[in-house]
């Protein structure tokens, strides 16, 4: 089961979501202007230190890197072949810095704070017909329902194994999609019942 936000009372948790997101944008942009291995390594040490400040364990830190390990490795090898190992290391360090920083923000910021900030930031798009409220709600709900859809998938897979179907994408996808659509209907009802107006007037 995935869980994005890790509750806490540290300074990083208390920092406003807008400040953290702005920090990420600035740091992300700056990283692409730096090609010095020592500076990038120093930045990585600082980012790891920030995990400690946020009261995260080393295990949590490595958990953020695990999904991109292969990509990092492939990038390093490809860059090393084409531009030399130093260039490979620079790319890898940049990527690790960025991923760890972004993950740290996700770990220390509640989804509602993140979406409130996003809603505020994309307000100007209201002029071209974009509803910021709907966009932020969609993001929150996507995060909320990832674990639920993975649970549905696990249940369907189990039910099919019980009936002797080991691997069939079609047999898995159809019931999962049908259940997800039914769930979407129920959720829409529940949101309406809790006073959500899709088209407030």
């Amino acid at each position, binding site marked *: *089961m995935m*869980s*994005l*936000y890790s*509750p806490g009372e540290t300074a990083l948790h208390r920092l406003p979501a807008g400040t953290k997101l702005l920090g990420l944008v600035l740091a992300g942009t700056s990283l692409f202007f730096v090609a010095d291995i020592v500076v990038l390594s120093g930045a990585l040490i600082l980012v790891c230190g920030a995990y400690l400040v946020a009261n995260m364990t080393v295990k949590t830190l490595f958990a953020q890197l695990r999904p991109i390990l292969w990509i990092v490795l492939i990038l390093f090898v490809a860059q090393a072949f084409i531009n030399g190992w130093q260039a490979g290391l620079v790319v890898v360090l940049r990527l690790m810095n960025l991923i760890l920083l972004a993950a740290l923000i996700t770990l220390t910021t*509640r*989804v*509602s704070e993140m979406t409130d900030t996003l809603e505020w930031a994309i307000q100007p798009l209201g002029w071209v017909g974009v509803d910021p409220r709907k966009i932020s709600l969609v993001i*929150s*709900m996507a*995060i*909320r329902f990832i*674990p*639920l859809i993975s*649970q549905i998938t696990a249940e369907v897979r189990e039910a099919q194994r019980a009936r002797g179907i080991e691997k069939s994408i079609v047999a898995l996808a159809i019931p999962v999609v049908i259940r997800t659509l039914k*769930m979407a209907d*129920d*959720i829409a*009802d*529940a*949101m*309406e*019942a*809790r*006073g*959500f*107006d899709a088209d407030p007037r």
Partner: protein
Amino acid sequence: MIELQDVTHRFGDLTVLKGVTLELSERRIGVIGSNGSGKSTFARLLNGLQIPTSGHVLVDGQNTRHQARAIRRKVGFVFQNPENQIVFPIVEEDLAFGMKNLKLDQSVISQRIDAVLERYDLTAFKQHPAHLLSGGQKQLLAISGVLVMDPKYIVFDEPTTLLDLRNKRRISQAIAELSQSVVMVTHDLDLLGDFDRVIVFHDGRVAADDVPRVAINRYKALLCP
């Protein structure tokens, strides 16, 4: 008071409710019936989630056909599966959802969240991911999400169906303690013992409408003639 005036409801060619007229004024009303008897549709009509094909549903004189939005704020609805009514990832965020829709002040929102979490012994889970709660806790969260909106009536659609015995007791106790008027659709006849009134639906019509003992006996007779 909630009134149904000659309500008929169809889904395509299927008529699920046939000319139902009722006045719901008691504090605890149970609704029972076999699968497909029309009881869930009946529940959904009460807060305007469904608008009747013909006839009228009035809540304190307001018609769901014209004032469904206003009525939904007055009539809370708790669904069978709490998974499908928890909208936000974190407990506190989800509780705030309905109140934000009502455009309440942040101070009121925070105060109501704290009060409801304390009421159901969920304070420790305020910052917890909602999907990691137990089944009973999820249903309590779903009820809390409705309670914080301070509705006058609450409709429950089979709130204990997916729960084990311990959680079933916990939820039924929580429902018993509510100060709001409650309409509860259920298959769980044990929950209805101390209700004021039980309505039995059969084939889209009201087959019995009486005190629990009498209505439940009539229901059993209908199932096993």
